[in-house]
């Protein structure tokens, strides 16, 4: 989503992105003319008339679980977004009985919040080896 029109999105896909990706862009390229949607999400810069690099992970209930906003000159790291989606999918499936500690990736140790765990995380989770 950017302030460019859907027509410019098509030309960008055809002339550049499809050459980088070696295929057409498989997702929706939406137009945020005027920055109205960016304003709604708090990522529109009216001075420059563009949207910042805002990224939102929205769950199946339509709730925002995570957001990241960068100013224009630095790009994102896609693998981190994938990791966060995997972690949110994991905790959703566990229905709140498990939590994913720092640096968690699929297959790594999760934590089961309970009164006994308070003050004892250091016994069951090692930040140097468990991530």
């Amino acid at each position, binding site marked *: *989503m*950017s*302030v*460019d*029109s*859907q*027509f*410019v*999105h*098509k*030309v*960008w*896909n055809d002339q*550049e992105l499809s050459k980088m990706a070696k295929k*057409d862009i*498989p*997702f*929706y*390229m*939406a*137009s*945020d*003319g005027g920055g*109205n*949607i*960016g*304003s*709604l*999400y*708090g*990522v529109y810069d009216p001075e*420059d008339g*563009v*949207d*910042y*690099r*805002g*990224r*939102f*992970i*929205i*769950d*199946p209930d*339509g*709730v*925002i*679980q*995570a*957001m990241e906003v960068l100013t*224009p*000159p*630095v*790009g994102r790291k896609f693998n981190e*977004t994938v990791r966060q*989606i995997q972690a*949110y*999918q994991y905790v959703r499936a566990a229905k709140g009985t498990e939590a994913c500690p720092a640096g968690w990736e699929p297959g790594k140790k999760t934590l089961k919040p309970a009164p006994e765990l308070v003050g004892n995380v250091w016994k069951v989770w090692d930040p140097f080896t468990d991530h």
Partner: protein
Amino acid sequence: MSSAKVGAKAPEFEAPAYYKGGFTTVKLSDFQGKWVMLCFYPGDFTFV
């Protein structure tokens, strides 16, 4: 007047879009029941 917060419902929107060779309209509510990654960026044909 941003209303986007973690833990809160994502603001509904509807926007014209380019999708797989055609022009269409996309709404956030089209994806109810699915995980959505919504990405904003400054502009087409910019460098980063």
